[in-house]
Each structure stands twice: as structure tokens, then as C-alpha cells.
């Protein structure tokens, strides 16, 4: 029997229409029926474009220069518009990254699920309705009957992504393309959605092309893995083989860029805490008109926290847990409703004389390096601004300090000082942002998701830079992150937040190895860890196994 793969991409080349610059360069791979294939790579590696090209959905600025794409033996590249439309949806389904925008907000769930079926099948309305209901129940939507008439905004991001998945899987496609399907979701939800996706596709024998930047996730769920860099496939093979015995230097670099737990550091917890909060409460006022006002929302319910000298305290939790609110309140960007904030043992507030001092000693690194630097200022101006209010610093001293900082963050002043932020990459911008925060040699830094917007390898470099500077200058740090892997690498102590409360706090090793609170356990069990084995390879395991009394040190195959 003549064996044909489900999807066969050979020597595919995509280029920018205008400049003929190749963005996907001569790639060849196959997807067999029913298998899960992962494409991993950093931003700009061409992984999404490849996936889109399979459905002929590449953006208009991109042109296919060469190569063939065979789907089920048919050449996609020469298909007519009609044949393409018959293939899309019915045979190849796609799930996008952003659940908030991939469902039409003005259509009920029922109509949206029905759309594809009505188009591609000859079933009657009643039959379609029955199928839809069955699928909704299958994906864990309670009261499926009722939810048919409901609009998307009633559902959370995770639920929407399930519904999106349901809409696609209803068509029983032979191939599902999932482009970063869970990147926008919280860790716990992420695992649920991915496992649902794997179950559904297994049941229906659907093959999956999973595109992601998240190597541990891809390693956990795929049969085969394709590693892309700068538009080329650098390595592909069975997932277990590739991660256990990576051959290409880039794959090795990716694997070695994953955060690892360092040795626990010695922190003097008897000394006066640098920053201490007592019973901090923050209410967000309700919105309303002149005469009516909605009730406000309590974002923080009395937070007690102390951060010791030289210590990195990580604040973890899902979105909406209040971790950013707490960080911003401590940095003085948000007003607290009640509670106390003490700096080096002295209680301070906005009106107290110590506040100015605190402003100098407490600095902040923001999440998005594209938004945290004023686009109209040069790097030198940006750094000079943060030194502007330093007393007794003349222009010469200031410029000397700027050169010094730029050196420290690995961006020599001669080359970078006069550039504007838009001429820098995301990683370089974050270096500047870190340099700016440290320019006054603060005692305390609030870092709000400082590496979340960065690619894996860049993230590793920035984390290293941050740790080095922290070691050198010995500032204390409140490190806010949703990424447990990063936290495991940098934190001395960890506080876990949920719904505006700290549910668990302790040293990093205690929290990661012996989580006590159920929420912490759930968080830890949602994120796979790639750990090096004795034989020099890498294997995945969950950080916490609920059914394992030995607190999750057990390997899964």
C-alpha cells in the first residue's frame, strides 16, 4: 500500500513580498495521522508563518517562493479557492492564541459553534444542535443547553479557549493547528486546556501541529518536535530523543536557557527588614456617574510582608491575584486604603519626610520594555532623567554614572547612549530598564514580571544579569512573576497569592518541595519541569504530583 503522510511540507520557502527576504527557509517536515507534532522556536523563527502557510493563510506581505505542501496527498499550493475553503475548517482546524478576540463577541456560543457544521456538513439543524450539545458537555461546560444562547463575554479566557477548541473539533478535522493556544492563559488553566486538547484529538484521531515557545510544555505533550531558528529547521525528531540527546547547538542552547534552581543563599532574616508591610488593604473604587456609584472591589485583603536585606522575595499567583497591585502599592504608585508600610524599620507614608528618601531608595522594573521607555528620548536622556533628582550630582558625575551603568548592563555607552529605544531589541531595552532602575544604587527594587515579555534565551541572559547585579549591589528585591520556573531560579523566599491574600509563604525550597496550600500545589502541578538527568539528557516531570505522597519527586514516563 502506498503510504502517504497526512501533511507533507517539502522545501517550503516563504519570503517578504517586497524585499524578497526569506522568513522561512527551505523547511521540510511531515505530520502523520493522529500524531502530535510540536514546533518550537523564539519570536521571529517563522513557526507561526509555517503553520499559516499550511492553510494558505499567510499574511499578504508574505509570499511562498518555493516548495510544496501536500495535505492528504493533495497539493495545497495549487488548490482552487473553492477546494481551499472546503479544506479549511472541515479537514484542517485552527486554534489561535488570543481567546479574548478569536470568538465573535456579537454572536452567541450556539451560533458560533453551528457556523462550521452548517457550512461543511449536510446535517439537519436538530442533528447539529445535538452534536454541539454533546461537544459542549464533553469540554466540561455545565448546563450546555443554556450556554448555547450565551455570548462569549460571559466566559473566562480558559473557557473561551475550550469553546474555540470545541468549535474546531466539532468538524472532526484530520489536522488541528494550534498556534500558542495557551500562552495567554494562567498556568493552571493552561494545563487543563492542553489536556483537553490532547484527549479530544486522541479520541478523534486528529493530528496536532502545536506551535509554542514553551519548550517544557511542548516536550510534555508532543510525540515529535521540530526546533526552528531564524526560519530554518535546526533539528527534528521524536520528542524524547531530541530533549534527551539534543544535537544542534541551538537546541542545546534552548534547553540550557531554561531556568534552574540555584543553591539556597544565606539570608540574614534577623536584621531589620528593608521593607515591611502591615495589614495593607487596597480597594479599587467603583465606577459610576455623578449620582450613582458601583461598589468598589477589594484587591488586597490585609497583606503582611517583609523583605530582608539582600533578599529576593518572589510574589507568585495567577492573573487577578493581586500580586501586581501589591507591588505597585509598595512602590508608591497606588494608594493603599489602609495599612502600614515601613522602610528600614521607619514607618513611612506619602506625607512623611522619609518619603523622598524612600523614592530614591525604591526603584522599579516594569514588564513591558516596549512601553517602559519613552520613545522620544535617547538612552542617555532616559538614564539622566532617573539621576535628575539625585542631590549633589553635577553633569559630569551624571554622565560618568551613565557610562558606568551602560557598561554594567552590557551595552557600551559609545555605541548605545545616543540611540532611541526603537533601535533596540526587547532584551536590550530591558537591560536599559534594569540599568535605569539601578542607576541610583537603590536599596530595594520592585521587579514586575521583568522577563515575561522576553524569549527564552534572552530571558536567561537578563535573569543572569539581574542576579549578578543583585549579588554585586546587594539590593533587596520584590520579584513579581507568574512563571514558577523563573521564580525557582531567582527567589530566596516565595509568597503565593490568591484572590488578594497571601496563601503561603516560605523559603523557596520549602514552598517548591513541600507545598502546603492546595492552591500552591495546583500551581506547581500545572507546570512541567525539564530537569537534567544523571545521563546528561533532559526529562520532563510535573513539579508536583497530587496523587504522590512524596510531594511530587516522582517521574512520569
Amino acid at each position, binding site marked *: 500500500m502506498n503510504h502517504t503522510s497526512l501533511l507533507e511540507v517539502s522545501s517550503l520557502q516563504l519570503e517578504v513580498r517586497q524585499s524578497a527576504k526569506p522568513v522561512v527557509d527551505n523547511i521540510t517536515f511531515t505530520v502523520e495521522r493522529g500524531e502530535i507534532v510540536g514546533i518550537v522556536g523564539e519570536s521571529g523563527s517563522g513557526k507561526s508563518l509555517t503553520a499559516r502557510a499550511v492553510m494558505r493563510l499567510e499574511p499578504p506581505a508574505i509570499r511562498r517562493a518555493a516548495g510544496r505542501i501536500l495535505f492528504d496527498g493533495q497539493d495545497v499550493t495549487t488548490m482552487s479557492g473553492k477546494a481551499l475553503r472546503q479544506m479549511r475548517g472541515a479537514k484542517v482546524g485552527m486554534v489561535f492564541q488570543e481567546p479574548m478576540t478569536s470568538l465573535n463577541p456579537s454572536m452567541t456560543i450556539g451560533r458560533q459553534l453551528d457556523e462550521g457544521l452548517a457550512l461543511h456538513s449536510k446535517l439537519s439543524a436538530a442533528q447539529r444542535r445535538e452534536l454541539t450539545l454533546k461537544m459542549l458537555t464533553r469540554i466540561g461546560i455545565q448546563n450546555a443547553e443554556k450556554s448555547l444562547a450565551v455570548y462569549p463575554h460571559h466566559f473566562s479566557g480558559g473557557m473561551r479557549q475550550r469553546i474555540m477548541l470545541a468549535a474546531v473539533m466539532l468538524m472532526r478535522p484530520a489536522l488541528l493547528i494550534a498556534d500558542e493556544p495557551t500562552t495567554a492563559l494562567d498556568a493552571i488553566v493552561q494545563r487543563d486546556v492542553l489536556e483537553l486538547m490532547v484527549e479530544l484529538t486522541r479520541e478523534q484521531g486528529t493530528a496536532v501541529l502545536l506551535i509554542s515557545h514553551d519548550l517544557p510544555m511542548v516536550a510534555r505533550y508532543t510525540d515529535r518536535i521540530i526546533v526552528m531558528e531564524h526560519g530554518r529547521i535546526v533539528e527534528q525528531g521524536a520528542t524524547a530523543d531530541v530533549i534527551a540527546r539534543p544535537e544542534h547547538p541551538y537546541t542545546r542552547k534552548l534547553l540550557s536557557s531554561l531556568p534552574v534552581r540555584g543553591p539556597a543563599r544565606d539570608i540574614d532574616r534577623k536584621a531589620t527588614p528593608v521593607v515591611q508591610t502591615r495589614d495593607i488593604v487596597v480597594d479599587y473604587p467603583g465606577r459610576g456617574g455623578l449620582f450613582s456609584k458601583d461598589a468598589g472591589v477589594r484587591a488586597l485583603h490585609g497583606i503582611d510582608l517583609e523583605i530582608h536585606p539582600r533578599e529576593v522575595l518572589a510574589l507568585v499567583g495567577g492573573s487577578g491575584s493581586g500580586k501586581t497591585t501589591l507591588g505597585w502599592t509598595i512602590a508608591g*504608585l497606588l494608594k493603599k486604603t489602609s495599612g502600614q508600610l515601613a522602610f528600614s524599620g521607619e514607618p513611612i507614608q506619602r506625607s512623611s519626610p522619609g518619603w523622598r528618601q524612600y523614592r*530614591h531608595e525604591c526603584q*522599579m522594573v516594569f*514588564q*513591558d520594555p516596549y512601553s*517602559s521607555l*519613552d*520613545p522620544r528620548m535617547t538612552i542617555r536622556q532616559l538614564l539622566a*532623567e532617573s539621576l535628575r533628582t539625585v542631590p549633589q550630582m553635577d553633569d559630569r558625575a551624571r554622565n560618568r554614572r551613565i557610562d558606568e551603568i551602560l557598561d554594567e548592563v552590557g551595552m557600551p555607552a559609545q555605541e548605545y547612549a545616543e540611540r532611541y529605544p526603537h533601535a533596540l531589541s526587547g532584551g536590550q531595552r530591558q537591560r536599559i530598564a534594569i540599568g535605569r532602575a539601578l542607576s541610583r544604587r537603590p536599596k530595594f527594587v520592585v521587579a514586575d514580571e521583568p522577563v515575561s515579555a522576553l524569549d527564552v534565551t534572552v530571558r536567561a541572559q537578563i535573569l543572569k544579569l539581574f542576579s549578578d547585579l543583585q549579588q554585586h549591589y546587594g539590593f533587596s528585591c520584590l520579584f513579581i512573576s507568574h512563571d514558577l520556573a523563573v521564580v525557582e531560579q531567582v527567589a530566596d523566599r516565595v509568597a503565593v497569592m490568591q484572590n488578594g491574600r497571601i496563601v503561603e509563604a516560605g523559603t523557596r525550597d520549602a514552598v517548591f518541595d513541600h507545598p502546603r496550600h492546595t492552591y500552591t500545589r495546583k500551581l506547581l502541578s500545572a507546570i512541567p519541569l525539564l530537569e537534567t538527568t544523571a545521563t546528561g539528557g533532559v526529562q520532563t516531570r510535573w513539579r508536583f504530583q497530587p496523587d504522590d505522597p512524596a510531594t511530587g519527586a516522582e517521574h512520569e514516563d
Partner: protein
Amino acid sequence: MKFKPNTNLLLGSVLCGIILLAALVGAFWTPFDPMKPDFAHRLLAPDATYWLGTDEFGRDALSRIMYGATTSVGISFMTVAMAMFAGTVLGLIAGYARGWVDRIMMCFTDALLAFPGMLLALGLLAVLGANKYGIVVALGIAYMPSVLRLVRGTVLPLREREFVHASRVMGNSEFFIVFRHILPNCFGPMMVLATSMFGWVLLAESSLSFLGLGVPPPAPTWGNMLAGSRPFMTQASWLGIFPGLCISMTLLGINLLGDALQDKLDPYSRGKE
């Protein structure tokens, strides 16, 4: 950024340049006295001496157009400056302070915007008196709300950007933040609005003069020249054609320039190049 030859920009600049030059020269020198009647040369067709002909009082049309350009452009310029200044200051306050300050200011702005600009200016002129400064103030007030809205709309997302928070963490005052970070980032859209507003104001001023509510005679403006030419439409059509042509050319030039500026200054289209 690569410089792309842009026909809109080129044509717009040339047209605006001609008018501006005429206005500048007209302020100091004109071929003949634009106000002094000369009854010996009434309603002459364009010839070598009187390039654009003469009007019913024998005054040189070219001189009057040049002098009128000074008045028209001057009034437009002052009006735009006034509307931009007041609108920017108020817009910055409304957008940055938000809360009840913003709400009250927006109430007044919406009330002003509810009247057509022309009607509002007519009403104000009736109070202020029909003269040069009356026009400037009336039109300035009429056009200020659109600046206010634009600036406020630009400030609202800007004030949530992280570099604004970063500046606050550095200990900079709110006043400093507004001038160092917010205002410079508003310049792009403000410039575009200012150019197109110049065109609207010029047209509005001409209309007011045409209606007899503008600068009082004998001082010429394009609007009152157009109005004055009506009785002689059949005998001396040039009297109406040239001021009308001036108004349309200026408007065309300014619109082209505004479009080109928008393309240049819009950060989104700029990023795509």
C-alpha cells in the same frame, strides 16, 4: 527612515509656500495702494499694469489680494495658535487629572461642540463686535473643543504607559512628567490637526467676511472681495474668480500638506516602513 518623494507633500508645500510668500510680501509692499480709490481706472480687465484687473473703485485687485492674504493668513494663524494653546492646556488637564475635573470640562466641551462652529462664531461675533480680534477670539473659541478632545484622547492612554509610571517612581513631579513625557508624545497628532484647522479657519474667516461680519471695509480680505464682486459678476468676472481661486488653492495646499504630515508623523504607519 528613507526619504520618499511624495507628491502630496511637494504640491502642498508649494501651494502653501506661494500663499505664505504673498502674505509676507503683502504686509510690507504691494504694487499699488490696496485702499486708495482711483476712479479713472474702474473695472479694468487684467492687463500688463493691473495684472489681475481693478475693482469698482479702481483699486488694483492683485494688491488687494496680497494685502488680503496678510489679513486672512494672519487671522487664521492667530486663531489656530489660540485654539491650539487653550485646547492643549485644557486637554492636558482633563486627560491627566481625569475624575470630576475631566467630567466637568467634557460637559462644557460637548456643549460647545453641539453648535456648528460657524453658528457659534456668528453668535460670539455679535457679542464681540466685527473686527479682526473679534474674529480671532470667536473662531478660536469655536475651534478649541476639537483640540481639547484630541489632546485629551491622546493623553488618556499615554498616562497609563509604563514610562510615565517609571518617571513617577524616580520621584519626578507630575508637572515634570506632563511636560517631559506626555506633551512631546502628543505633538504628532497635534501638528496634523493644526494644519487642517488652518484650512477650516481660513474658510470660516472668508465666510464671515463674505457675510459682512468680518474685517470692516475698506480693508480687503478674500471673503469680502468675493462678496463685493457679486454685483459685477457679468462685467468683471475676474473680481470674483481670483479671490475664490486663492481660497481654494490655499485649502487644497493645506489639505495636501496635512495628509502628508499625517503619514509622516503617525507612529503606526511610520513603523511599517
